[in-house]
């Protein structure tokens, strides 16, 4: 859990409870309620999906739910905007390929 700011001159961070979730079957930790994209980023994962036509890696761009750059497969649902979707215990998160699959 070292991708988090621990000391900040101005801000204090109120974080939810620590939860486990899975990224491509690998167990990771994050804080409940934070966006999935933020938890992944803190765990060092920046590639969230591969584009439809040229299969190019994509990460988040706007982080506020406005650009659709961050779509992933979450608990079997494709096209979840992970910069807005809150993290929950036990979530299964996968990199989306192209338009994604349903029921992963």
């Amino acid at each position, binding site marked *: 859990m070292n*991708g*988090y*700011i621990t000391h*900040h*001159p*101005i*801000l204090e*961070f109120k*974080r939810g409870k620590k939860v486990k979730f899975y990224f491509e079957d690998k167990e990771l930790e994050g804080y409940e*309620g*934070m*966006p999935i*994209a*933020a938890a992944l*980023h*803190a765990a060092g994962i*920046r*590639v*969230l999906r591969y*584009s439809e036509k040229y299969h*190019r*890696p*994509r*990460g*988040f*761009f*706007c*982080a*506020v*739910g*406005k*650009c659709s750059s961050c779509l992933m497969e979450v608990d079997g649902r494709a096209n979840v905007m992970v*910069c*807005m979707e*809150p993290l929950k215990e036990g979530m299964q998160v996968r990199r989306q390929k192209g338009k994604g699959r349903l029921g992963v």
Partner: protein
Amino acid sequence: MFDICVIGGGPAGLNAGIVARELGASVLIIDDNPVLGGQLIKQTHKFFGSKDHYCGVRGIDIAKILSQKVEELGIEVLLNATVVGYYDDDSIGVLKNEELIPIKAKCYIFATGASENMLAFENSDLPGVYGAGAVQTMMNVYGVIPGKRALVVGSGNIGLIVPYQLLQAGVEVAAIIEILPRVGGYYVHAAKIKRAGVPILLRHTIIEARGKECVESAVITEVDDQFECIKGKEKIIECDMILIAVGLSPLCELLYQAGCEIRYIPELGGNVPYYNEDLQTSRPHIFVCGDLASVEEASTAMLEGKIAGARAYEYLYGKNDRAEEIVSTAKQELKTIRMSPFEQRIVEGHRKLFGRERQA
């Protein structure tokens, strides 16, 4: 049915809702975030201007003050809710908890804000190329370390403030590059960042991001007076993040759907709804305010919100002295702010918007 439905709980929308409620209207505020405040919730810098504009108060604290007021006034709030459509019967569709809820109000105030502009260069889609505001969200709201070393493209206020916040979070900033021969944002922000040792390279642009799966470096170059790249002036900057801070575009999709007249006015941010000096659109029961109306600052967004809120109330209940006073004070303050040379662009944009006769 609510009198007024405000879409967007940022500085503009919150002020609109508060003013309308204080005048006596029933108000609903809808926002797609888990908390109210819009982009204020990641702004750690202190605002300036006059006392009435929260001079010396940090954005994050302004968000708290406004949310508190919303609660005290008993304004209804729907959070984590996205407005996904505007329908022929003047109702809106709100998506919440995977359920689509139809809502209808007598009057709407749109304060949907703006989205960050992208910039085209080779590999600009690599992970690690981020909107500057996105990094601000990750780092200031969620406390995530965004990367090790950043290059910032653009020297408007966002391009100057975010690098300072990166330094506070312990992230290195390689440089800020700006294609124009001058810094875009306020002098105070530029001076602060220079004192912190971050170079601002004027007449520079980015031509390529490099890296296999994520950004590993960036290629920048100097440009001439015609903004053409000068051969032989390329430089490689080691960085794992490239922050794009080249402006915002108003989010007016819902207004297209609502049948509001839209005009292209580059000075205001691109495609914007047509509105009059009271922020009323071509559809009289729809008002706008904030970055959706013109991409500016939080302080001007708050003032516009007050005007939209007061005028929306009057639209429903007729002329009102208190509303008139709120509007005239806000207009006076806006005028003062917009006398600054930084605001000339907006003044010119408004000249185009208000100066021309409305086309049918």
